[in-house]
């Protein structure tokens, strides 16, 4: 790829063009799956789910449901013509429970009826005969009982035991890290339309149409080529629709097969939150060996991750936790262990950051504890541990943090200056010294995040580009649009290649029939992968068109220039549309299937070593909070963020991703709390009980910037960088700032015990705890 490494002014790429659907969305005209005009005879479906956390499923009696007016069909495991398995990686993850139910919300079947209301009522009327068994409800109980969904993953570098034995100080600690519900505004939905020859069209709100295609075919007992999956847009995904959408799509398809009618399955919010997976909650424990300057010599961390009842994506989630437990810090001797604990709770899944956030808050808690117990400045402790921009150390998993690409110091120094760290630190310390009721806290933290799927084979993408004879362009690729602006970014890439107006590029729904064998739109890789595949497709077409133009103008092809919607040779030109028509007339192909595979990466999943990431993104945050020491209430008063997006494809969209991810991360670490009762029932299954941030929770002062003049050192599409996940972890700064405010309530040298999320109750507990420990010290 031949692009300038320096930032350049481009015609389309790099401009803050609004989201392609914004004008439709504000008018209520953007069509989501539940808005598609229903075909005659369409039935509505609802899942039948287990009301108990663990039990033997001895019988299912749908007779009462089937007798209700308008109820058309009931399906359970026995009705599956193909395979009762929707495991995204490992096999044996049944669509419907067969003999055992393993969590409250476990699907055992589905009902179809003529109306949605009737389907929901009928699903409740299906009688389940379940003999209850003792459930395992938390990770520590599972770990103690040796209950796992897969073997542990252990990442080892150096001799950690020797490093710990010879360290000047040992720092030990523990952190309870909460999970998080995705709370995409559009709940899971699938609409299956049966066709001839056993074919099935499925409209699915999924980040992974290919996986839906495969699993629907698998469940129906057919071939992949009999299923076409369409995804125009999702009302949010955040990882929750990466693997989980298959359950909904396959259930709808099964009912469509049984009834011969189109079937739409939409989960009610409470069913969505009960039956589908979330971010893994984890318990982290550590032992760090440090020197007097707080430099880490050896570090051992063990994570107990709540996998839930099946593996789903827990394996790679834990891998990312382990490969981000260094965050930005060089750890010469490490042993990072992740246990995939099997519990009788819903199987957890992908969520923006995909295990990375748990790794990063883990190491940030370690760093903060080191600084407090050694009475050092926490930013100084961070700085002595940074991967050196001149030294090029290697991560515990074997990937070098290459010096010329390392932006840690650049980003953190710039942010500390722009956020007026020194002045505010002094002011806050002075304020807290007066023992106020409302205490302040301040914290800075960096985020280094690895970009690429850990599993190398997923790092590939396809795109399909057609140029029509009027010069208009049809664009399709394997990426899905969930609000993140991917479709616009990829369209900008294509418009840039052809040098045409963005309005000339038609964005189309993702579908398995046009671009096959795609990877999930996940791991922040959407624009890196699909943008490059589209770039390759468009570039190939442009090359062929240039030859036609060269023949027409009788100049060498190298002298043909595409600019401002026209194609130029010296002072002569034709419009892009005219050249398209000429290219057709010359019998030259105006269509191309582009393909891209990320270079340079490799990974050994057994040893957890390799170069899993094509590159790193760098970001940093400074957050200031106030806490109420009487009630534990908190508020983020100011946040300053700086994020490296490379040469941004679309700064407006990237800004939206950064702000939105940060606020979502704040929710994870402050107000969002999943609460299970002693029967394993999740009791926070709607927004009345599960509180995501509202508009007033956004930092009162919110300064967000993209790192300027920072093209990617690797050859990504127009030297951009991924943005979807990394800024979520910048919200760890808010949690650290709350810790800082809590620490001010205690004696110097003490580290707060603050659980995540920092709810008012958890903050108050931490305040009371550190005050009690300070009292004991006196």
């Amino acid at each position, binding site marked *: 790829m031949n692009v300038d490494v320096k930032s350049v002014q481009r015609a389309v790429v790099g401009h803050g063009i609004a989201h392609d659907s914004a004008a439709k969305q504000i008018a209520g005209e953007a069509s989501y799956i539940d808005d598609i005009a229903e075909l005659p005879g369409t039935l509505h479906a609802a899942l039948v789910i287990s009301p108990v956390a663990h039990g033997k499923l001895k019988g299912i009696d749908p007779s009462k449901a089937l007798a209700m007016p308008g109820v058309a069909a009931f399906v359970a495991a026995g009705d599956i013509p193909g395979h009762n398995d929707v495991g995204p990686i490992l096999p044996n993850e049944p669509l419907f429970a067969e003999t055992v139910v393993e969590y409250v919300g476990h699907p055992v079947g589905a009902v179809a009826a003529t109306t949605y209301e009737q389907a929901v009522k009928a699903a409740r009327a299906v009688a389940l005969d379940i003999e209850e068994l003792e459930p395992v409800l938390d990770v520590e109980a599972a770990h103690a009982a040796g209950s796992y969904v897969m073997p542990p993953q252990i990442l080892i570098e150096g001799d950690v035991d020797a490093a710990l034995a010879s360290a000047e100080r040992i720092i030990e600690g523990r952190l309870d890290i909460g999970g998080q519900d995705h709370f995409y505004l559009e709940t899971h939905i699938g609409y299956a339309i049966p066709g001839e020859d056993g074919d099935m069209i499925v409209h699915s709100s999924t980040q992974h149409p290919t996986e839906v295609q495969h699993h629907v075919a698998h469940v129906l007992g057919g071939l992949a080529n009999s299923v076409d999956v369409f995804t125009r847009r999702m009302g949010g995904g955040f990882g929750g629709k990466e693997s989980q959408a298959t359950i909904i799509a396959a259930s709808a398809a099964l009912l469509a097969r049984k009834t011969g009618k189109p079937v739409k399955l939409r989960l009610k919010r409470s069913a969505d939150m009960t039956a589908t997976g979330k971010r893994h909650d984890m318990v982290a424990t550590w032992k760090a060996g440090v020197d007097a300057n707080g430099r880490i010599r050896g570090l051992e961390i063990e994570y107990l991750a709540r996998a839930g009842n099946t593996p789903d994506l827990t394996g790679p989630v834990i891998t990312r936790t382990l490969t981000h437990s260094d965050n930005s810090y060089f750890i010469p001797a490490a042993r990072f262990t992740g246990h995939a604990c099997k519990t009788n709770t819903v199987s957890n899944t992908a969520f923006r950051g995909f295990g990375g956030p748990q790794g990063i808050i883990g190491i940030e808690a370690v760093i903060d504890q080191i600084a407090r117990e050694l009475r050092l400045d926490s930013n100084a402790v961070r700085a002595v541990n940074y991967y050196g921009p001149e030294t090029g150390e290697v991560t515990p998993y074997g990937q070098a943090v290459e010096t010329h690409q390392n932006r840690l110091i650049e980003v953190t120094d710039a942010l500390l200056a722009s956020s007026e760290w020194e002045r505010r630190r002094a002011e806050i310390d002075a304020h807290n010294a007066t023992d106020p009721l409302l205490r302040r806290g301040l914290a800075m933290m960096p985020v280094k995040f690895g970009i690429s799927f850990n599993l190398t084979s997923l790092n590939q993408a396809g795109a399909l580009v057609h140029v029509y004879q009027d010069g208009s362009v049809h664009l399709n690729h394997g990426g899905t649009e969930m609000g993140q602006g991917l479709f616009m970014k990829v369209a900008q890439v294509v418009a840039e290649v052809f040098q045409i107006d963005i309005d000339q590029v038609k964005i189309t729904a993702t579908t398995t029939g046009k671009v096959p064998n795609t990877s999930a739109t996940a791991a922040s890789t959407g624009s890196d992968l699909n943008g490059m595949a589209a770039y390759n497709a468009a570039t190939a077409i442009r090359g062929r068109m240039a030859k036609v133009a060269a023949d027409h103008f009788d100049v060498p092809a190298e002298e043909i220039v595409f600019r401002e919607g026209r194609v130029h040779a010296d002072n002569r030109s034709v419009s892009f549309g005219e050249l398209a028509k000429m290219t057709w007339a010359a019998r030259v192909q105006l269509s191309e299937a582009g393909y891209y595979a990320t270079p340079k990466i490799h990974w050994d999943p057994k040893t957890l070593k390799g170069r899993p990431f094509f590159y790193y993104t760098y970001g940093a945050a400074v957050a200031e909070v106030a806490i109420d020491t009487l009630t534990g209430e908190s508020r983020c008063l100011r946040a300053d963020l700086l994020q490296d997006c490379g040469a941004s494809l679309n700064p407006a969209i990237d800004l939206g991703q950064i702000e939105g991810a940060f606020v979502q991360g704040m929710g994870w670490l402050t107000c969002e709390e999943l609460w299970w009762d002693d029967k394993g029932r999740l009791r926070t299954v709607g927004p009345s009980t599960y*509180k995501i941030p509202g508009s007033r929770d956004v930092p009162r002062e919110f300064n967000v910037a993209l790192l300027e003049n920072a093209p990617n050192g690797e050859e990504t599409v127009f030297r951009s960088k991924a943005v979807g996940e990394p800024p979520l972890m910048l919200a760890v700064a808010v949690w650290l700032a709350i810790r800082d405010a809590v620490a001010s309530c205690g004696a110097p040298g003490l580290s707060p015990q603050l659980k995540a999320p920092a709810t008012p109750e958890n903050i108050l507990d931490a305040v009371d705890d550190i005050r009690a420990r300070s009292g004991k010290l006196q």
Partner: protein
Amino acid sequence: MTDQPRTSDSIRFVLNGKPVALAVRPDTTALDVIRNHAGLTGTKEGCAEGDCGACTVLLRRGEGPRQAANACIMTAAQLDGTELTTVEGLKQDGVLTPVQDAMASNGSSQCGFCTPGIVMALTGLLEKAADPEEEAIHDALAGNLCRCTGYRPIVEAAKTAAKAGVAAPSAAGLPEKQTEVSCGGSVLHQPETLDQLTALRAAYPDAVLLAGGTDLGVARADYHSDWDRIISTAQVGELRAIGETADAWTFGAAVTWEEILQAVRADYPSLATLIRRFGSTQIRAMGTVGGNIGTASPIGDGPPALIALGATITLASKAGGARTLPLEDFFLDYRKTELKPDEVIVSVTVPRPKAGEEFRVYKLSKRYDQDISTVCGAFWLATEGGKVTACRLAYGGMAAIPKRAKAMENKLLDRPLDRGSVSEAIEALSEDFSPLSDWRGSAAYRKKTAAALLHRLARDLAGEIVEVMAL
């Protein structure tokens, strides 16, 4: 008004400027009416519990401006005789409104699923307030969740649209309310006088007595119950009245919290702050004081505040006529009240403040806006010569009912409110309360913070800033 009953099998209302008559069961949710019966899909279902705002529509009932409301927990019963506007009805002559323009160009929508609801909420705000303060924008958005943007571009769009100017369209003529609508085995009664209401209540003690529907509507939206007979309080003149004397406010049971907020703002700023955190703009537009009391939730925010203020409640039945009792005596046990099967709540009377009195109410929740209280503490004190001469301390979230803390009150009487008296009152807390643990907070947290709120009160009355949200 004619004496002839106006009855039919159809709900009649104005939808996006056009009169419609839809033959639907009156207990059909308004969202299902809009999406399934009217075929308008711009309005979304995000939660079906009136919390996320994706279903926000504008509703005009009688005089006054259009108000943002949640279609998901509203029923067709509440649409009869109103003007309903959905996102599809915003455009004027095919031209987008300033709110839509600003939302489209400010990066205010990502996945777009919350967007129509947010457009409606901001339209509702700007039609009433031409140049709102930032806090008013947050108030207007408290009932709308966005999971993508982080809200900044939405708040900015509101400011941009305000600058451009938002004009409220002229009101359509409203169809006359019907006294009875019957369709598909569900009957709606809309009485207009208290006598009619009590007669219907006596005849149908099992009917759903529907006020704002912000609580009952949640179960309906989840299809947990069918309402075969509904008696609406919304048209009853006596229940819609607000009475004001030098000594007291009297709020009819069907007066909405938005109306109460406007009324008490000057008298009780602390109560106004609580009401602003009470549900959301959408919920306050529909939710009534009678409904809030009648549903008798142990975590409702209205009762502790009203009990502390010394409110009384008036009930009436056809057989027994009217009776008035202190509100604190109305609540008997978990979801059990003084209300007899044939009785209705008529009104609540709230004394106005006098010299030497102080009132504060504090709400603790995981999120500041649109959350249910973990603990709500309401405190009314009368002082003379630096000593507390009378007081009422009432808590929500601490017991099966909203309840006064009489043991604590006794420790405060006849002494100055200071560290000593507050500490003694706190010692008495466990005589008054033994709260439960749940997802909103543990029993220990509830006890600790119920005590802490008394410390907060003392500091607040001493002039300190006591809440992080005041920073």
